[in-house]
C-alpha cells in the first residue's frame, strides 16, 4: 500500500486558515530553518481515502473476536466516546482558574471515589497515563514512604516469575533491584520461596492477582502478610482486575497500593496502543506522598491540593483526562450490580471457552480459571513441529485476532486467551469450533499452519531483517 508521502502532488493541499488579518512579521533569517519539512502534500479526499484504506488493514474489537490475553479487549461503549467529545471537556485549557473548571474537577473526584470503592483504597492520583506509568508511580510511592521513614536499606522488590515484563523494568526505573521468586508447579506464589526471599532489604512486592495464568492465588492473605511482617509494602498490578472487580478488592487482600488500566477494565479503547490511563490508588498512610495536585472537596467546591510529602509529578497537568471521562461514564452505566456482573461473565466466558477447547488443547493453568487461561502447545510442537506462533497465525485466517503469544514466560509455547464478558455465547461456540478445526489442520497438514496467514493483507513479515537493517522512516 502507498504511503501518504507517495500520494498527492507538489503544491497540493487544502486551505484551512483565512489570510492573516494583522501585519505579517517574519523572524530574523538567522533563526529560520533551511528547508520546509517534507510533509505530505495531499488533497482532503486523498487524505481521507488513505486512512480509509489503512483502517481496512486494521483489526479492532469492532471487527471481531479479540481474545488478547492480559489486554481485556472488551467492547468500548459508544456513549463513552461521545461524552469524552463534549466541548465542555475538550475545549478546556488545563491552566484555567479553578472556578472555571469545576466540572472537570468533579469528574476526577467522582471517578476517584468510585475507584476507591472498587479497589478498597483511600486515595488515587489520576496522573499516570498507562499501566506501566502507574507501576512506576506506585513504586515511587512505596519508595517515598520508605525514605520518609529512613528505610534506606530497603532496596529490593520481589516479583514472581509469571509477572508482566513491565514489572521488573519498573523496579529498575524506580531505582530498586528485582528479586525473582519462582512459582509452584500449580503456577502460584511459592510461599516458602517467598519467606526465604524477604528480609531487611525488602522494599515491597509487585503482584498480579489473578496472575498471568488466570489463577487467583488463594494464599493472597498470607502472601501480603509475609511482606508486611518483613517491613515491605504490597503493590497490586491491576492489569487483571476485570476478573474480580466488584467481587474482591485489592485493599482487602492486604495490598497497600494499586494501579488500574482503565483502558482495559473500564472500557476505554486502546486506540492502537494508547492513550490509556493508569490511575494509582493507595491506603491512607501513603496518600501524603502521592503526586500532586489531587482534587479535594471543600465547602461544596472542588480544589486542587498538593499532598504534604508529595514525591512530585509523573507527567504534565492532570493525566489523560478524557480517558477518565470515559471511565466515569462506564462506571455510572454499570453501577453496583453491573460491575460484578461484568467480572462474573468475564470469568464465565473464559471458563466456558476453556472447557470447550480443553479436549484438543493442553491447558497450562488447571481446570478452573478466572478471566483468562493459558494454552501450552509444547506437545503439539514436539509432535508436529507446529508452534504457538503457527496456530496464532492460522487463527487470523479464520477472522479472529490471535491470543497473546509466548506469555507468560514460565509456560512453553504459550497462548493466553481472554475472551471478556462482552462476547456472546454464539461467538464463543464458533471460536471453539475454529480452534478445533485449527488443531485438526495442525495434525494433518502442518505446512498449512507454517505458511499462515493465507488470507490476511500481508504474509508473515521478515522481522529479523527489520531489526538488522532498520528502516524507520520514509525516504523518497
Amino acid at each position, binding site marked *: 500500500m502507498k504511503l501518504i508521502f507517495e500520494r498527492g502532488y507538489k503544491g497540493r493541499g487544502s486551505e484551512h486558515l483565512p489570510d492573516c488579518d494583522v501585519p505579517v512579521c517574519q523572524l530574523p533569517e538567522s533563526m529560520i530553518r533551511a528547508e520546509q519539512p517534507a510533509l505530505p502534500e495531499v488533497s482532503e479526499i486523498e487524505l481521507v481515502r488513505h486512512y480509509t484504506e489503512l483502517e481496512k488493514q486494521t483489526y479492532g474489537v469492532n471487527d471481531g473476536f479479540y481474545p488478547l490475553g492480559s489486554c481485556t479487549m472488551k467492547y468500548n461503549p459508544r456513549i463513552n466516546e461521545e461524552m469524552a467529545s463534549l466541548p465542555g471537556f475538550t475545549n478546556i485549557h488545563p491552566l484555567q482558574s479553578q472556578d472555571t473548571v469545576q466540572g472537570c474537577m468533579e469528574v476526577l473526584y467522582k471517578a476517584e471515589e468510585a475507584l476507591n470503592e472498587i479497589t478498597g483504597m483511600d486515595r488515587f492520583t489520576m496522573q499516570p497515563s498507562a499501566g506501566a506509568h502507574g507501576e512506576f508511580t506506585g513504586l515511587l510511592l512505596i519508595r517515598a514512604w520508605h525514605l520518609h521513614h529512613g528505610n534506606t536499606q530497603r532496596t529490593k522488590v520481589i516479583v514472581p516469575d509469571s509477572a508482566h515484563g513491565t514489572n521488573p523494568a519498573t523496579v529498575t526505573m524506580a531505582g530498586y533491584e528485582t528479586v525473582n521468586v519462582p512459582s509452584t508447579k500449580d503456577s502460584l506464589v511459592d510461599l516458602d520461596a517467598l519467606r526465604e526471599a524477604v528480609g531487611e532489604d525488602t522494599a515491597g512486592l509487585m503482584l498480579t492477582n489473578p496472575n498471568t495464568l488466570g489463577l487467583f492465588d488463594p494464599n493472597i492473605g498470607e502472601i501480603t502478610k509475609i511482606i508486611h511482617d518483613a517491613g515491605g509494602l504490597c503493590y497490586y498490578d491491576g492489569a487483571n482486575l476485570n476478573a474480580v472487580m466488584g467481587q474482591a478488592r485489592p485493599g482487602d487482600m492486604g495490598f497497600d497500593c494499586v494501579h488500574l488500566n482503565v483502558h482495559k477494565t473500564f472500557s476505554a479503547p486502546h486506540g492502537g496502543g*494508547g492513550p*490509556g490511563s493508569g490511575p494509582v490508588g493507595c491506603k491512607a498512610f501513603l496518600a501524603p506522598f502521592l503526586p500532586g495536585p489531587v482534587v479535594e472537596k471543600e465547602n461544596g467546591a472542588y480544589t486542587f491540593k498538593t499532598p504534604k510529602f508529595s514525591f512530585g509529578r509523573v507527567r504534565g497537568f492532570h493525566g489523560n483526562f478524557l480517558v477518565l471521562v470515559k471511565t466515569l461514564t462506564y462506571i455510572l452505566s454499570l453501577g453496583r450490580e453491573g460491575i460484578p456482573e461484568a467480572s462474573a461473565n468475564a470469568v464465565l466466558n473464559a471458563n466456558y471457552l476453556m472447557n470447550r477447547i480443553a479436549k484438543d488443547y493442553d491447558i497450562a493453568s488447571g481446570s478452573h480459571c478466572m478471566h483468562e487461561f493459558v494454552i501450552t502447545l509444547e506437545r503439539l510442537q514436539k509432535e508436529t513441529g507446529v508452534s504457538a506462533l503457527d496456530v496464532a497465525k492460522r487463527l487470523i485466517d479464520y477472522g479472529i485476532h490471535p491470543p497473546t503469544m509466548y506469555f507468560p514466560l514460565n509456560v512453553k509455547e504459550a497462548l493466553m486467551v481472554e475472551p471478556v464478558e462482552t462476547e456472546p455465547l454464539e461467538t464463543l461456540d464458533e471460536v471453539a469450533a475454529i480452534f478445533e478445526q485449527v488443531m485438526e489442520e495442525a495434525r494433518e497438514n502442518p505446512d498449512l499452519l507454517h505458511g499462515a496467514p493465507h488470507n490476511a493483507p500481508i504474509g508473515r513479515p521478515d522481522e529479523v531483517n527489520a531489526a538488522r537493517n532498520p528502516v524507520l522512516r520514509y525516504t523518497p
Partner: protein
Amino acid sequence: MGCYVPNTKAQQQKMLETIGFTSFDDLYKVIPESMRVKSLKLEPGKSELEVRRIMEELAAKNNPFKSIFRGAGSYDHYIPSVVKSVTSKESFLTAYTPYQAEISQGVLQSIFEYQTMICELTGMDVSNASVYDGPVAAAEAVLMCETRKRSRVVLSGALHPHVIEVVKTYCDARSVEVTVVPPKGGKTDMEGVKDALKDDVACLCFQQPGYYGIIEDAEALCALAHETGAKSVMYVNPISMALLKTPAECGADIAVGEGQPLGIPMSFGGPYLGFMATTQRMMRQLPGRIVGETTDSRGGRAFVLTLQAREQHIRREKASSNICTNQALCAMTASVYLAAMGPSGLEACATQCHSKAVYAKDQLVLIKGISLCYDEPFFHEFVTTCPVDPDILNRRLAKEGILGGLPINEGLLWCVTEKQSKEEIDRMVAVAREVCES
C-alpha cells in the same frame, strides 16, 4: 443498567452447567470468603440517557472560553474537521498495540508515517512511536544520556515548570542528580549553564522557544554542551518547527516535545502526545515502540514493531524504560493534522501565530502600566507586566469570554495563535485597557 453483557440469564445458566457449576458463586470459590465483596457502595447502574444527562451536566459546569490568550504548555490551535473524522474510525479506536502485524498494517503504517513526519519536523534521524506527554518525553530523553561516569543532568530554568518537575521525579528514582540553572532575562542563562557543565554532566536540556516564549540561541547551547562532552536535549514546540532552525541544524542529540499543538484538543491537559527523536547513533537508546519497514513472505512491503531487544517485554529488569502502552491514537492525530496542513499550511499557521502575537504585544504595551518584560525575539508567547492584580484583569476578561494570559511572577504570560482574529485581539486589548487605565 446492564454491563454490555450480551448473554441472557438463561444462557449464562446453561454455560455454568456446561462447565460443571451451578452458580456464579462457584466461579469465585477460590477467593477466601472474608475477602468477597458483599455489595459495592456505588449507585445502581443507569440508563444511557441518565448517564448522558449526568455527564453533560458535568461538562456544563465548566467554562470554555471563546478567545484564548493562554498557552504555557497547552495551545489553542485550529483543528481541521478531517482530523477528528479520520481518528474516530472504529478499527483505529478499538485496536490494541499492533502485535499481530498481518492484521495491523494500518496502525503500523500510520506510526511509520508519524515517525517520518516527526523526523521531518525536527530534522532528526529516528523517532519512536510516542510517549505519554512532553514532560515525560523530556525525562526519558535525559535518562537516555546517562552513563556511569555522567550521572548529572543540567536543566535550563526556562523550561516549562512541569518538565522540570517530571524530569526531577524520573531522575531522583535513578539517583541522577538534577541541576536547574535559573533563567536570566527570560531565557537560558548561558553563563550559568557554562558553569554548571562539568565533566560529570550527561546532558543539557532546554526548551525552544523557552517557557517565556523567547527564541533561544539553540546552536550555542548545543555547542556548549558538546564542548564538555555532554549531550544536548531540545524540548521544542512542534508548530514553531515550521519556521525555526531544526534541532538537527542546531546540533541537538535528542529532540522531544509536547505534540498537543498538532491537532489535539486542550482537553484539560490530556490525552496529549510526547514525541521523541534522535540521531542514528543513539537509536538503540530510544525507549518505546518503534515501527520499521521490511518485506513479507510474499515479497511485498510490510511494517512491524522492531528493535524490540530494547524493550521491557524482552529485557525485563535490564530495560531502560518500562513504557508499553503509549499515545498511539494521538500520534495518528498529529499525522493527520500535519498531512491536512501540509508544509505550506503549517508554515502559514506558524507565521500567523508569530505575527498575531507580535501584533497583540504591540497593542498591549500601548496600555499604561503594561510593558514587555523581555525584549527579545519570541515565537507566539511573551511576558508583560501587569499594573493591576492579574486575577482582577483575568476575571474581567473572563466576563467577555476571554481567557487572559497566565499569571506568573513577572506579570502575565500571553499566547496568541492563528485562531485569534484581529478583532478578538483588539477586543481583548480594549478590555485590558479599560481595567488597567481606570
